[in-house]
């Protein structure tokens, strides 16, 4: 049953993956280069003195920072919403209408979301102008640099706000399925609101939350468009760096661009595999 889909996905995805790996190994037939070497990967190592070596490690660190921070903040935000929900109703049922609302935010493309964030938070943005009009800051330029800042704050804000609804939907789906009974049982046994959260709700949602966080992390780790839009020229995220090498006028640089992409892809795959294993274990555990 799955075979036709597998052929298409495997053919398209597999072939391009195969080409990426080949090109990262210096196989560039369009300039008559057929030799397989690890030179592009070596050029990424610190100390090799190439432009790529100066850029790769900072980009890796920056990418880890942005994806880690965005994921952790989003998880905290999503849990926070669940806790607030708990505070009101004990059993954390989503307030009526919140699921369609969450779905709506998910429907916004990341790019549109990032542009909206930029319009809102840039030094020339809406918020800076409002604060300026209110006399809270002397000039719009006194507004803190949140967009195109060297710490990736703009990128983190964009992904955090986009990931919260995603994680929240996963949490609500888990909670909706069973918490009523467990929460009622805990209440019957005299659990306080905090104890219910700590011993009932959290263990229930943790596998889904972890899997969702890993997926979010993997997504941000390999992302291009938002870092390209809201980032600075240094440090850059891995995908932006890879494309920059790929687009270099010297076609030989494409090997380095592909090497960065392959390494990024490997890390994303690894994280996705862990997320998958966690989900599978959870399903098996409940099965």
């Amino acid at each position, binding site marked *: 049953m799955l075979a036709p889909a*597998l052929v298409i996905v495997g053919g398209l995805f597999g*072939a391009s993956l195969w080409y990426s790996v080949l090109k990262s190994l210096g196989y560039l037939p369009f300039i008559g280069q057929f030799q397989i070497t690890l030179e592009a990967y070596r050029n990424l190592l610190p100390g090799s003195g190439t432009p790529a070596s100066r850029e790769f490690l900072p980009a890796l660190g920056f990418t880890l920072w942005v994806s880690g921070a965005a994921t952790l903040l989003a998880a905290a935000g999503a849990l926070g919403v669940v806790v607030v929900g708990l505070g009101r109703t004990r059993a954390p049922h989503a307030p009526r209408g919140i699921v369609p609302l969450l779905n709506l935010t998910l429907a916004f493309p990341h790019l549109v979301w990032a542009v909206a964030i930029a319009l809102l938070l840039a030094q020339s943005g809406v918020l800076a102008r409002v604060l300026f009009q209110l006399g809270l800051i002397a000039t719009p330029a006194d507004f803190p640099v949140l967009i195109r800042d060297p710490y990736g704050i703009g990128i983190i804000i964009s992904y955090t706000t986009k990931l919260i609804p995603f994680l929240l939907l996963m949490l609500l789906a888990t909670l909706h399925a069973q918490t009523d009974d467990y929460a009622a049982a805990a209440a019957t046994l005299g659990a306080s609101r905090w104890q219910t959260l700590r011993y009932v709700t959290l263990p229930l949602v943790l596998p889904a939350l972890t899997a969702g966080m890993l997926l979010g992390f993997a997504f941000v780790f390999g992302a291009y468009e938002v870092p390209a839009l809201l980032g600075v020229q240094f440090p850059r995220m891995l995908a932006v760096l890879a494309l920059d090498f790929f687009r270099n006028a010297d076609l030989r640089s494409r090997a380095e661009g592909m090497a960065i992409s392959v390494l990024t892809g490997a890390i994303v795959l690894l994280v996705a595999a862990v997320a998958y294993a966690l989900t599978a274990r959870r399903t098996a555990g409940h099965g």
Partner: protein
Amino acid sequence: MYQRSLLLLLCLMLAACSNTPAPLAPLPAPAPLDDWERIVADARGQTVNWYMWGGSESINSYVDQFYGTALQERYGITLNRVPVSDAVLAVDQLLSEKEAGIDPGSIDLIWINGENFASLKQADMLYGGWNQKLPNSVLVDYTNPALIYDFGVPIETFESPWSSAQFQFIYDSARTDPADLPRSYAALLEYACANQGRFTYIAPGPGAFQGTRFVKGALFELSGGAEQWRNFDQAQWEQWSPQLWAYLNELKPCLWRTGSAYPATEYELHGLFANREVDYSITQSVTGAGALIAEGAVPETARAFVFNDYMIGDYNYVAIPRNAPNRAAALVLANLLLEPEFQAAQILPENGFGLGYGIDVRKVTDEQDRATLEAAMDRLGAPATPPAELLAALVPDAAPEYQSLIEEGWRENVLIGN
């Protein structure tokens, strides 16, 4: 079933890797380049697939309206303008076609910039021998060094010019008195540090040649001339580059965002300028600020100005891929671009293109054509830099080897360093 599909997949991948092109029906021999009448006859009924940057609606409609109509009415050729977000996508497509052995391909003509031209030359994917065979090539000055080098790469017979451009700055006459404008890099440094955060430039790098060009101008001024940079000389680079980085690092703390962030594109800089975050923007247009005013990207009071020297000027070109399916139609279009009537139309801001002449007006012998071309220049008006000032400051680009030295060196020594 599963195994069979895996096998099929493997076959597909092997097929994709094979380099033997599928046999094609033999094509009739193309007309010799010396026989223009036959080329025009061959081109009739063809569709010319012109790949070009499609990011400006005004340029798109200029192309369709002027060239599209003329091609159809005069030559029976259909123009298929293929907009791409970056000309490098056309390069990617040609490289893929080469790898897959696809000939005829899908691209007949590309509006190309120096970086992509260098890439395609490196990949040996360009059709050559044609540019000076176009009837209108007599209007082009093929002895002008600024024209026969594209970003420092010799164009040889692979490119024909379309239009020209020159580095200029833009200021807002409603905010800045023209008497206060800096007229050199040294004066710019003084201005920037006296007006903290009111200046920035485009980050040099692939795809942002305007920024690279700004840095090259500084190099020319520091070393006292543009001429010595026409040929590559490593020792000379090592002698002057430390001073270049020193200059830019002195400028850095005075820049917008104290030089921690730079606009990545010309339009981003126009945005900062229109927003009054910085005092100057950068353009390459012969209309100065005119075309940008017409687009609404900058205020109506915007005006162009140049330093007294070292304002790099160059040409932009069209090229024909080796595997172009409609080569005759591409040649006719490349020739049409050089017609004096269209050259005169392309510089006027209201027509939406706004780049300078690809031809040399002095070589136009027809009285009426020449009058049209000169009248068009006169109509550019206040937003443009006066032609005499442009010419006085004009220098050609540096040798191509400096391009990546500057871009990588800037990242290492100015952006990342200290």
